[in-house]
């Protein structure tokens, strides 16, 4: 079962070859067998999933029309609301918080008859690049259990990589869908900013966040985009566009110009450089031309990101004060203690770090030098990409300077921040980007190629990923568990 793609499973179900219940039971079985070790799920919806499966089987039996995602098991990162279920954001603060409404994303999935199978682990409040910041449990990389699965959507990536479900949703603010996808050898797509509704996604960096699908292949990701990539009235930053017909536009990429920021990549170490350039050769063999582009302003993107994202986050997380919901400190006796102690006890170190940083860069006397300046640099980054896209159709870079690192090996938070150098700028510019497996390190860990499109160029990015995938099927692999 787990060897099939989501689309294959759906088609088999619709043809009556397999029942929805058997699909769900098969995946629940795999979760029970392997997830104790991997730790990707925070909660498994055994009953809910089987209930939905039974309903689908009954619908099919009656000959009723079924949705695009019928029979497909999908895991949801635990910072995206499923109504009535707990949304923890992997934080002690929200271990008692039941989502009072469905996120638009989950609503749309269920309308198309997807089977929501559980909530996955993440870095607390999506702040991190390894899922090590989860306050609740550790998630391990299915390819090497000593290593991190990447972050912050580590649980979502690990679950799909280990084939514990067909598809998962993650969220990407600075690379949190693409980097774990690369570390886990699967496909991870971040749409153009505003393409998928953020309603029901617990906000971290409001102008940077996007929900994105993680899948074993590009067409599955494209299918999810068909369902989720549409305007939402409840999100004012949602693009005023309807959905797109992705699957019928997975065309040949012959003749496309691929921009590569050679200068920006010059410090890449040997192994990732080799794999990246081999990937470029594959693109060439598909009929693309490689063009050198200047993206040197991106050297400021990490500083810009950590100013803007934390500024937004410091206010987005201000609502977690122990007054209305969440875990209030039992020791608090006064109002200030409710605030101080609930946050002291509820938040992990990295969250505190980012809130402090965000508050600082907005504070009187510093806002001009930090926040305002960063906004201006952000505009320069946006302009830089616009200019680059005059000379090319897609941009290619590695996803990460290296493959998955060992759990606990990076202790310096700044060092952790610097890892996101290739993924962060894309969020600053609101561009669509995908991570596709393009090789393995010497130690057998997956690496990813990043393809980036201009704003609203989501279809072409997925089409290019599909073409690459077809050319290099050996990189779509399942880890030995």
């Amino acid at each position, binding site marked *: 079962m787990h060897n099939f793609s989501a689309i294959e499973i759906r088609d088999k179900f619709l043809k009556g070859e397999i029942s929805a219940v058997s699909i769900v039971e098969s995946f629940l079985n795999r979760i029970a067998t392997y997830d104790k070790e991997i730790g990707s799920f925070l909660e498994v919806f055994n009953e809910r999933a089987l209930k939905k499966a039974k309903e689908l089987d009954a619908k099919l039996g009656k000959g009723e029309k079924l949705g695009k995602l019928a029979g497909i098991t999908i895991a949801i990162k635990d910072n*995206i*609301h499923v109504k009535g279920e707990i*949304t923890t*954001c992997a934080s002690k603060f*929200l271990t008692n*918080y039941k*989502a*009072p*409404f469905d*996120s638009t994303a989950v609503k749309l999935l269920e309308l198309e008859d997807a089977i929501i199978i559980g909530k996955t682990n993440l870095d607390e409040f999506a702040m991190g690049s390894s899922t090590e910041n989860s306050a609740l449990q550790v998630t391990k990389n299915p390819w090497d259990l000593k290593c991190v699965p990447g972050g912050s959507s580590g649980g979502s990536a690990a679950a799909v990589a280990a084939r514990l479900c067909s598809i998962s949703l993650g969220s990407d603010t600075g690379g949190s869908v693409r980097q774990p996808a690369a570390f886990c050898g699967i496909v991870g797509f971040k749409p153009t900013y505003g393409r998928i509704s*953020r*309603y*029901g*996604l*617990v*906000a971290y960096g*409001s*102008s940077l966040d996007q929900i994105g699908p993680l899948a074993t292949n590009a067409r599955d990701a494209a299918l999810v985009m068909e369902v989720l990539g549409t305007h939402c*009235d*409840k*999100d*004012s*930053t949602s693009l005023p566009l309807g959905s797109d017909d992705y699957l019928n536009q997975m065309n040949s990429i012959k003749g496309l110009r691929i921009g590569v920021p050679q200068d920006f990549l010059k410090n890449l170490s040997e192994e990732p450089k080799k794999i990246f350039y081999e990937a470029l050769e594959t693109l060439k063999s598909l009929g693309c031309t490689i063009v050198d582009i200047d993206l040197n302003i991106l050297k400021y993107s990490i500083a810009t990101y950590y100013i803007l994202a934390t*500024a*937004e986050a*410091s*206010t987005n997380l*201000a*609502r*977690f*004060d122990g*007054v*209305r*919901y969440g875990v209030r400190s039992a020791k608090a006796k006064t*109002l200030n203690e409710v*605030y101080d102690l609930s946050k002291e006890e509820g938040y992990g170190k990295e969250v505190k770090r980012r809130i402090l940083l965000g*508050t600082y860069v*907005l*504070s*009187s006397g510093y*806002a001009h030098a930090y*926040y305002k300046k960063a906004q201006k640099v952000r505009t320069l980054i946006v302009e830089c990409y616009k200019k680059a896209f005059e000379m090319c159709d897609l941009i290619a870079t590695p996803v990460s300077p290296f493959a998955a690192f060992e759990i606990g090996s990076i202790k310096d938070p700044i060092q952790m921040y610097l890892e996101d150098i290739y993924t962060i700028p894309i969020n600053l510019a609101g561009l669509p980007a995908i991570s596709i497996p393009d090789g393995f390190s010497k130690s057998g860990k997956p690496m990813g190629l990043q393809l980036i499109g201009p704003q609203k160029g989501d279809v072409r990015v997925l089409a290019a990923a599909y073409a690459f995938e077809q050319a290099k099927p050996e990189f779509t692999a399942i880890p030995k568990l």
Partner: protein
Amino acid sequence: MSIYDDWETVIGLEIHTELNTKSKLFSSAPNRFGDEPNTNISEVCTGQPGALPVLNKEAVKKAVQFGCAIDATIAKFSKFDRKSYFYPDSPRNFQITQFEQPIVLGGTIIAEVNGKEQSFAVNRVHLEDDAGMLKHFKAFAGVDYNRAGVPLIEIVSEPCMHTAEEAIAYALAVKAILQYLDVSDCNMEEGSLRVDANISVRLKGETGLRNKIEIKNMNSFTNMGMAIQSEIKRQIHEYMNHPNKPINEVIKQATYRFDPELGQTVLMRSKEQADDYRYFPEPDLVPIILTDAYINEIRSQLPELPLQRERRYVNDLGLPPHNAFVLTLDKKLADYFEEALKVCPHARNLCNWIIVEFAGRFKDTGKSLLTSNIPNLHIAKLVNMIEKGTITGKIGKTVADEMVANPTKDPEEIVKENPDFTPVSDLAEIGALVDKVLAENPQSIIDFKAGRDKAFGFLVGQVMKLSRGKASPKIVNDLINKKIQ
């Protein structure tokens, strides 16, 4: 001459007005006052994680209407900012407001101060959402989020007022405009209209501004007047009692409230350091972009405004400007008057009876003519009777007293029940009295014929005295005139 004569006051007002939209500024929860706590709420206005604000277009329209009504500039591009501060009544611990680029800039308020028209400058008007309400109980404090997220416009004046009278006149004029536009309930008691005053003093002739303090929570215009006056005195005394202290240390920035029982302002909290709100653009909302067509349509569809109504009353009805101002300050009162006008065309007299005679009778009773349920038709009838001569003005006052005591009673009924009220019009009866007075006051006749008009009035008065006020003044006048010739 008083010790205060060397000093002048600088006052600026910030008026927060709740807009009467159906739903809140950023959520679809109902915008209603007085319901059970926490029933008019949604995930947005209780700050749930994952919730997002969506702008209420009706609120934008009302803000633009107000801006057009005060001849301000409507910003074609304005945006929202986050204003951070922690308090339980703030569901997100940041307010969404317009700090950098408000929707309305400038503007003028014309008000009547001590009988004269005066123009006051508005600095800006912007949209923001209201906070919830804290309710204190013995063992805990509860928060009611019904009000959280209600749309507000904040109207910020230039520091251009110099007396409590000016401040009150300005605030009343603003309230009238809001009322005429029907964009707010403007009810100070319910909190849909809140006025904060910023006050500083300085020696006459000084050009710079000294430190100011802010007075909040003034829940009536009367209290506002008292608060401002007491604060002015307090500040002047502070400066005079500390002549050697550096000027910027005598009065320090702080927030005061007015205590009606003490009759003075009381310190609420000092602002040793101004709050750092860490403003930055709200990333969950797109900027408000308005077209000329949109703005022009709103401007062209404005209803009649208080000033326009005042001008109409002066030009078309011949009302004295002051009376017209008083009448039009409350739309309900002006409507009451105009409806009565349909059956009683004597505008000046009708106005006088409404704003002077009847208003005076309700002063200090806690009621007003409007809340008394006296139908405007009745006042129309009363004035008609006086104009016709059916009763004298003096008797009219007695009838009015009766109407106040029994608000539903028809004045024509009252007059019928009191035959004494109807002046005697029997020519023979009055003629006899006139003859008597003329006979007893020959000097007055001579004086009048010599050109002293006062003598005529004297004679009329004597007849009225004899008749114990019951003679019809008109008839008395006519008869005296005839008989003198």
